[in-house]
């Protein structure tokens, strides 16, 4: 391949994505308007649209109005989000789940398998199993697969530097899966992809410009940050050492609960399976143990929240994962505790919300794959 040919192909691919993105955003819907807004010639636009129609990504939808000076009525064009499917996989420490999504983030199915062991063979096998189980449910060609992994991921090649939860170390996950599955596979950090999922598919309550941070608390606390409007995401490298130091997560909360319950025989939480929902309900009834657990958790989370707010100055911070079951009341408690560290005025500038979707990581993986392949996110 000569350099000049590669450049021509790259340029054509760039233009193709540009045209598709314009149609995806719904800003224009005719060939002539596309030529005007992109600066491409009309023959180039027509040729690209011809390709996109052949690929099923663009549909012709009747005729529009002719221009004021009369003349031929233009053919209206529309982006077809159902032309390709993407599988977004979220790898947890106990199970692996995957969503089957179209290009607009509308899901038709989810598949879940258990993860019974740590280490690369088990993780690779489980990811392959969830993707294989969704293949019979495809209604369109599979464009790509995204994978969300707890741990440090190299953004360039999707290899996992380290994942304590999954027992992975220097594992070329994206490359291995791409080879095995026969479609492009993109791998990212779970918390970063939770942030990307909110950014891409409007899963958050508010969608304001600037930087958004997502603090995910399930087994452990993780941080993801996404910048608007580029979709650039980071966080796992940035916050890792500080979060590891905090030792904040479900196992810590359970230890704390056990210690408190030893001195509270009448607590509503005695003999109950400890879940965030149970803590919320008991706290609402005035249970002292449940209230103490909420306050402890809010104080512990306030430190990373204050740090994120001071360093990144985000417009939005979302809590995601199981902790969202504590509800809006917990959010107020958290804001109050963070304000003690930073001052109320600083926290007033941040919109704090809950990201309630329990498929956020998998949707973020869909967004990652979409960004890499077509750039049709948000």
């Amino acid at each position, binding site marked *: 391949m000569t350099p000049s040919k590669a450049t021509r192909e790259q340029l054509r691919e760039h233009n193709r994505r540009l045209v598709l993105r314009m149609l995806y955003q719904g800003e224009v819907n005719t060939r002539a308007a596309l030529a005007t807004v992109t600066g491409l010639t009309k023959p180039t636009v027509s040729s690209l649209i011809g390709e996109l129609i052949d690929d099923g990504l663009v549909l012709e939808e009747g005729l529009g109005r002719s221009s004021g000076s009369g003349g031929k009525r233009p053919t209206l064009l529309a982006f077809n989000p159902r032309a390709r499917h993407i599988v977004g996989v979220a790898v947890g420490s106990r199970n692996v789940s995957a969503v089957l999504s179209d290009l607009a983030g509308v899901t038709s199915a989810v*598949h879940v398998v258990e993860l019974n062991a740590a280490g690369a063979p088990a993780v690779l096998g489980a990811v392959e199993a969830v993707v294989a189980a969704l293949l*019979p449910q495809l209604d369109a060609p599979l464009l790509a697969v995204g994978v969300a992994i707890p741990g440090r991921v190299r953004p360039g090649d999707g290899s996992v530097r380290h994942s304590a939860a999954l027992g992975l170390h220097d594992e070329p996950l994206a490359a291995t899966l791409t080879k095995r599955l026969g479609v492009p596979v993109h791998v990212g950090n779970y918390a970063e992809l939770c942030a990307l999922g909110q950014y891409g598919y409007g899963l958050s309550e508010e969608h304001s410009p600037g930087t958004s941070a997502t603090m995910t608390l399930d087994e452990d606390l993780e941080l993801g940050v996404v910048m608007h409007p580029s979709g650039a995401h980071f966080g796992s490298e940035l916050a890792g050492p500080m979060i590891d130091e905090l030792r904040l997560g479900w196992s810590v909360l359970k230890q704390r609960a056990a210690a408190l319950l030893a001195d509270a025989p009448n607590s509503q939480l005695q003999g109950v399976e400890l879940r965030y*929902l149970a803590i919320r309900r008991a706290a609402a009834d005035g249970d002292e143990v449940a209230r103490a657990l909420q306050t402890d958790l809010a104080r512990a989370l306030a430190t990373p929240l204050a740090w994120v707010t001071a360093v990144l100055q985000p417009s939005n911070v979302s809590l995601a994962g199981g902790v969202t079951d504590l509800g809006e009341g917990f959010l107020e408690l958290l804001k109050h505790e963070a304000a003690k560290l930073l001052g109320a005025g600083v926290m007033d500038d941040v919109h704090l919300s809950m990201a309630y979707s329990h498929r956020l990581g998998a949707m973020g993986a869909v967004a990652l794959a979409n960004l890499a392949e077509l750039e049709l996110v948000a």
Partner: protein
Amino acid sequence: MSARGPGDASERQVVALTNNLDGVFQRSVLRGATEVLGAAGAAVSAVELGGVEQASELQEILAGVARRAAGVLVISNAVSGEGLSTVTSAGAVATLVSHRSQAPQAPPTLMFDNRQGLQQLVAHLVHDCGRSRPVFIGGDASQLDAQERQRAFLDEAARHDLRVPEGNLLTGDFTPHRASEALQALMAAGGRFDAVVAADYLMAIAANETLRKAGVRVPEDVAVVGFGDGPEAERAGVTTVAADVEELGRRAARQLLAQLSGRRLSGRTLLSTHLVRRASSC
């Protein structure tokens, strides 16, 4: 299974096992599955196990299915774990529809996303309709769907800080007249509620009629919603989460065909649901 070569017609024999061939759910699953399997050249037959009481007779029937079928669709809880082993012991592949086995190497499951559906129904009642005192009419507690939907309802109620007294958890067994009776009993006992969430849409339709006959205004006094959807719900104007049961059958058939072509599958596939707002809610 040495008796079956690649060109053997028995490779395309699919048997659907059900506990009730007359059930609306079962018939709809079968219709959807037959459409896809038939188009793929498979011969489909259905076996009803609901009336079989003797264990030995059941084993004999299942052994017969194992001999002739290459693929088996198990609809709801038609077969227990042991029966499932009998069916698959001769090499047949299986897909479980709205059922699950905890056994190692268990066949894959295909069902609706019960958690998502209940999230949509409860969120609609609370956020859109402003309701705070729901009644839940549960399904047949021996079925996985019924268990999951009741658990999901209680979790969603807790997520919206709703108090649901024990007396507001009714049993309808996925049977409209039982749902109706349970609701009548609750009203007679002076139960207070402003919404009904039924574990399936047929019970929701029955609840809708029962309330209207009792002079309760729907949805002004009580909003009614149910899981799943069908033409009956549309005719009755009952709000549901669309979970097309025929589509469930079609999707299950796709999964079974993938297994018949040699793909090894495990785990469970949950089909997405979405809210269909009609006159019975706001």
